[in-house]
């Protein structure tokens, strides 16, 4: 069975990656490259399955999420 890397090794890899990315941003000649460090938010993700009754009606969660004009109904990602 293949062994997983230890948590310490994973943490070191994450820290080195972070340091390297910061270094790349600083390495841009003459200016700090903000765009290389700032990423968009995550995609909204798949909407859930629908029952045999179909998408009509407010009881269909997926269609309600897709059509929502209110934030509380839209099932969009949160700011974490």
């Amino acid at each position: 069975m293949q062994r997983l890397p230890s948590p310490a090794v994973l943490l070191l890899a994450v820290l080195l990656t972070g340091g390297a990315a910061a270094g790349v941003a600083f390495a841009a000649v003459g200016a700090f490259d903000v765009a290389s460090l700032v990423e968009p938010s995550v995609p909204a993700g798949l909407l859930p399955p629908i029952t045999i009754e179909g998408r009509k009606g407010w009881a269909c969660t997926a269609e309600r999420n897709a059509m929502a004009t209110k934030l509380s109904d839209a099932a969009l990602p949160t700011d974490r």
Partner: protein
Amino acid sequence: MLRIASCALLLAAALAPTLVFAQAYPFASPVARTTAPAQLDALARDREVTERFRRGLDAAAHGDWRTSADEFTRVVSLDPAEPRGSTARYDLGIAQAHLASYSAAEASFDEALRRDPGFAAAAANLVETALQAGEIARARRAADRFVAIAPSSLRAHYSRGLVALQANDLSTARADFAALTVAAPSYALAHYDLAVTEVRAGDYAAAQNELEAALALSPGYARARFALATLMVRANRSADASANLARVIQDADDPSLRALAAGLRERLTGTQQ
């Protein structure tokens, strides 16, 4: 009179177990009231569609996407009428996407939309599947379709904004995220994504305004604070940037964001975090 009442009571007691027993089969179908072969065949198909829908949804609820895909593939082969036909293809598409069969999933959502052109959830999932597959051009076409079906939908604008940003179509991204900030002013991510768009466009002042709006709504939003700190670094405001990066290290749930903030702060301050 008393004898009749006693008899009725005894009869009710005798029938009670039968009634309880009958209630144990909530999905029992009524007996067919026909002997015509075509009608019997249609009834049998209908029963199979109903049962396989139930099994497919049950498997999906347990994350068993292989079984779910098999059940909905069989439903699709039985070719039920609407809305079952488009719904079965939608549910099949979800299972296929979870199995990383993205082309098959896109085809299923596409067929669901062909059968039911107003099916917004199918349009939404078509965008997500194309994004998961890394097919940006197809994701963009699907996102345009989603917005056309549901022009007021928050999710439609969010999805198309992200796709447009990936395709470097900054004017569409800006329009979608701006629409989102108007329709849902309390949604911090809309301000954040608008800021990312402005960073890519090189309008750092506008980006800073949006990031400050996002942080006013959600002070613990670590990714927005990190982005604001990078703008401060760029503007040579090292002390402000360092303070914000320290807050990111404290607030961020994502270890890679924490590491990125720590690496940047270390370079700014020249001290080990």
